[in-house]
């Protein structure tokens, strides 16, 4: 099995890019691959717990929890996250908070890296 690291940079919650990153991660994890996701920029807003799930509105929490249960490692850029007013104790349990070196280490050990940016 392979090791895939996905860098999800701009991805606003509800955006096509964000949804694509999560669905690709889910498909890879389902096939038994090891998957890591790094959130940066506006994607970090999605790690806040207790998101209200409105009908036909894409939110991250439910999907993120399902990915964590499948063994996907998810880490949010701490600086980006706190800059958006989200405190660590408000985050979804299981999601890691760290700095860019976490992402660099994952890139270094991954078989494939997909950096999704620019929307």
């Amino acid at each position, binding site marked *: 099995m392979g090791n895939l690291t996905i860098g999800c940079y701009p991805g606003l919650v509800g955006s096509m890019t964000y949804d694509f990153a999560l*669905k690709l991660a889910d*498909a890879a994890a*389902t096939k038994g*691959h090891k998957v890591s996701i790094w959130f940066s920029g506006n994607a970090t807003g999605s790690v806040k717990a207790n998101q209200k799930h409105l009908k036909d509105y894409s939110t991250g929490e439910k999907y993120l929890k399902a990915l964590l249960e499948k063994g996907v490692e998810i880490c949010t850029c701490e600086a980006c996250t706190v800059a958006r007013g989200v405190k660590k104790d408000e985050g979804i349990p299981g999601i890691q908070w760290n700095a860019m070196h976490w992402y660099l280490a994952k890139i270094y050990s991954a078989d*494939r890296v*997909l950096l999704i*940016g620019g929307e």
Partner: protein
Amino acid sequence: MKLGVFVSDFALTTDTLERFKADKLGIILVQNGVYHATTKENGKASSLLDKTPNLYALSEDIQIRGMKDADVDKRVKVVNYGDVVDLIFNEYDKIAWL
């Protein structure tokens, strides 16, 4: 090097693609990029489809835009997310996102 490139927008990214030097180039059309596989202007398909014989389009992104897999240019293989994962690991050494 075998390079797989995700094209996510319905804009001609040929300049960027032509700068890539790959022994094997694959283009995976996702999001609004799937319009390259379904839309003809003045009867002509997107010139992006002439860049390589290795063309793929994500079924979910085709259908969510109200089109059918049957609307896709015959040169393009329709794939699902699981197929994309297999392309990433089995067909290409490096992957990029445009």
